[in-house]
């Protein structure tokens, strides 16, 4: 078992075109670090020195991680993580 991470179109150049990749870790931060070992550069597109980048939204099982624990949000096997750029509605 692992954690599935869905990758938005604009970041698939870093995952060889894969729509979803798998990784492991106890927190979101560790998960991103793990992904970065196989998909170098991915972490830097998601995170800067202040945390999650402004226009990057990350959802753990469909809930926005900014309302959970941010990068320190606990993740575990079987969870689903979705990364999406922030877009307008209305």
């Amino acid at each position: 078992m692992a954690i599935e991470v869905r990758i938005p179109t604009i970041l698939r150049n870093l995952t060889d075109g894969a729509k979803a990749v798998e990784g492991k870790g106890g927190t979101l931060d560790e998960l991103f670090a793990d992904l970065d070992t196989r998909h170098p550069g991915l972490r830097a597109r998601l995170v800067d020195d202040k945390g999650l980048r402004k226009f990057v939204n990350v959802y753990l099982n469909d809930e926005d991680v900014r309302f959970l624990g941010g990068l320190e949000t606990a993740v575990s096997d079987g969870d689903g993580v979705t990364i999406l750029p922030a877009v307008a509605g209305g």
Partner: protein
Amino acid sequence: MRFDSLLDSLGGTPLVGLPRLSPSEDVRLWAKLEDRNPTGSVKDRPAFYMIEKAEKDGLLTPGCTILEPTSGNTGISLAMVAKLRGYRMVCVMPENTSAERRQLLEMWGARIISSPAAGGSNEAVRVAKGLAAENPDWVMLYQYGNEANALAHYETTGPEILADLPSVTHFVAGLGTTGTLMGVGRYLREQVPDVKIVAAEPRYGELVYGLRNIDEGFIPELYDDSVLTTRFSVGSRDALRRTRELLEQEGIFAGISTGGALHAAIGMAAKAVKAGERADIVFVVADGGWKYLSTGAYGGTLEEAEAHLEGQLWA
């Protein structure tokens, strides 16, 4: 009920219980029927407030042209008010929105400028900002950053909910401009200790997220995440499933974004049941299903309906 004119009848919408979808007598779901507004959506409230404010501020004078980026409902509401008040209306709308929205806009006399499907409303905002710069005499009300948008809900929707249901514990609405959630959320937080404000954000097909760069995203200026308790991303499958459940179980014919809000509301209800807490959960029926009939959302299997919605802006 009698009113002097259509605009005077704005708001005062019913709050109806959902006896079949509510999990228990202690955890109840309530639908705020915003489709019962003059043009059939919740957007009539901010549209009216934004125009009133622009008139008071002297920005709008007779014969003016209003410009707005909109995926539909706000444009339809603005076009109706503009027609009654004697303004011209120009809408910038992504080309991947339903045919009914276009027809309604044209019916109320709006001119439609299409923006590319790829990029969704982000592109509509970008195109509208360009047009505003080229046409300095046009007035862009700009729903994403106009305080009157949230104020409409702070002054009307929020107080209506509290008056009808003083025991309210949760408020759930779709997240677009964020105006509904910011306005109702602020009001309820002032009035109801520990009220939970929950956003249901539509998650579209991939085309809509087709930005050139992840640093070109968009966050409405109105958005203040401290107003929210949490925020869910709801895919088209879950939104469609809940839209159909609402129709089949409770008889309410709603648009697809309402299914998204209901999905989050049902999730919060399940949490309350699990925690053994009582809950009165209000969610917004943003519009009726009429404008989405051509999308195939209500017929065939869920898989077929989901396939039809791929690439469409359904909220």
